[in-house]
């Protein structure tokens, strides 16, 4: 019986870090289930879900990874999802539509805060977020993937955000995944982009 843990690893971004980390996991008998990796400025970051043999002590996992990745100054955090308080789920999964929201313009504090509050109001789930600020002209760009419950008017949501940010020179785009797919993929529209809405 395998046990599942969620981990984050933060280390110096130098050649060999992934090799060292995967070595350590292999030696522990671990197997990755889900992984997301990004390089944020000077740092290598990774968030992963992995399974380990049931008898493997969580402290040993953390210590072993730290030891193997010592040359990179790795910091490891680990959580056992079973020990977490149960998380309130929708009784029945509701069909949500996927959208991509992008914001771009002159950087100023509070943009993300406003967007996040507005999304929370409509019970919108954030699936992915990426963004950066360009130092040369202090402009920023952020893109997020959203899972939107039924009944949310995408035109209205976009207009609300646009009205808020347009005076500050920040442009907002909100596009349905299927519209993006229809514009980006060469296959005929009826074939590639019509699929039942995913549930979460």
């Amino acid at each position, binding site marked *: 019986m395998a046990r599942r843990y969620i981990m984050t690893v933060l280390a110096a971004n130098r050649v060999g870090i992934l090799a060292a980390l995967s070595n350590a996991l292999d030696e522990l008998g671990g197997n990755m289930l889900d992984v997301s990796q990004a390089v944020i400025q000077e740092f290598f970051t990774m968030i992963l879900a992995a399974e380990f043999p049931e008898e493997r002590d969580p402290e040993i996992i953390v210590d072993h990874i730290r030891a193997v990745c010592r040359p990179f100054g790795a910091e490891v955090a680990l959580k056992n999802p079973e020990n977490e308080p149960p998380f309130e789920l929708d009784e029945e999964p509701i069909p949500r539509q996927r959208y991509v929201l992008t914001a771009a313009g002159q950087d100023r504090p509070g943009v993300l805060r406003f967007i996040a509050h507005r999304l929370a109001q409509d019970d919108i789930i954030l699936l992915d977020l990426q963004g950066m600020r360009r130092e040369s002209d202090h402009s920023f760009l952020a893109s997020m993937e959203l899972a939107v419950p039924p009944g949310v008017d995408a035109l209205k949501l976009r207009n609300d955000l646009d009205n808020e940010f347009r005076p500050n020179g920040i442009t907002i785009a909100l*596009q349905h995944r299927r519209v993006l797919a229809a514009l980006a993929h060469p296959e005929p529209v009826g074939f590639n982009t019509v699929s039942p809405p995913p549930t979460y």
Partner: protein
Amino acid sequence: MAHNDSFFSALQQLRQLPLDVRTITLGINVSDCHNHSLHTLCEGLYQRIISKAERLTSVCGEVSSLFGVPIMQRRIVVTPIDRVAQGFAASDLVNVAKTLEGAAAQVRVDRIGGFAADVQHGISSSAREMIASLPAALSQTVRVRAAMHVGTTESGVNMDAIALLADALKQTAQADSERNGDAAAKLVILANNATGHPHLTGACLGDGWGDLVVHVGIGAASLIRHALVERLSQDPKAPLHELAAAIQTAVFQSTRTAELVGREIASRLGADFGSVDVSLAPTRRPDDSVAALLTLLGIEQVGAPGTATALTLILNAVRAGAAFASCAAGGYSRIMLSVLEDSSLAAATKSKELTFDQLCMAANAGSGGLDLVSLPGDTDVATLAAIISDQVSFAVLNHRPVAIRIIPVPGKRAGEGVTYSGMMNDAVILPIRGTGLSKSFIERGGRLPPVR
């Protein structure tokens, strides 16, 4: 550094495009509603339209908010009424038109087409009654659009029908004189086009489309404008082929979006998905002028030398973009220079730079005929018929469809301004040269033989 400049530019491509859909057209088969009793016929038509289209408006709203794409206009088209309502007098056909109006109002659509007849070979007694009913039918309804098919390349042109229609057109305008002859704008004269083309004003459900079908018309004017402005801001001296590429890309995006929206609406209504119309047309939004695109290309005034070349460039780019975007893209596309609906064109009539002859020239280069042009009210019937037959014979000779909508404005002369309610712009009536000089030609009647 993880997020470098290429990440930046990749994300920038996700910017909002001014995507929209110009028309959603629901085609409803009403052939089996035929009945010799007027009451039963009207009741059958009304119930059929209500039952098939009652969800159209709400479904359009749902899909529009789902995809974040506005839908500008919703239309219904039915089987040509001439085939369903045979053997009725003109006054009965007015009641049929009012029934269509009532049903369209009930389901909250903007237009209903199908009050139409084919008269390219000869005029049946039913079609004659329908033409006679036009002045009352069109001036007493708002949403009903009528169409008459007067000629094709294969069958030739029915000049008798054109003369009859020119007369009906003038009477229709007269019957609606308090609204500057607005009713005449609701009659379209078609050639080379079985009345079935679903996208024309006044179109009907054509043959072979099944019982319930959703067609969609792209709204590309604002997207093309956006693309051209962007390209010109990067390079104000961009050569024509680069601008053509920008138009092509914009039309591709527009066609893709329209098809996605149309298919979703069709599946929610349980209808077939029909076709995508890629004609370029103005909408009521101020920036959506087709003539303004010519200005961006460098033709300062529609009708100036070079207009035909610019229209050809746009039309070719539109066709190329649409053909790659969708196999459902309609077989033909055109540029609609609808004077009263296009803010730039309407403004051009006021500046006296635009003449009627230039419009006729543009109508034969890329555009689909004289569309929503207001003419002096004292133009005689023979001259109106001659104007119509000129357009028709050009189209027939060139194997392409044409749609003509002209309004002889009652009581107004050339140079006077006209104002219409609704989506039309104010315009100035253009003078016509040589009125009354083709009378004997038109009075001969008969037919133009087929083009070989």
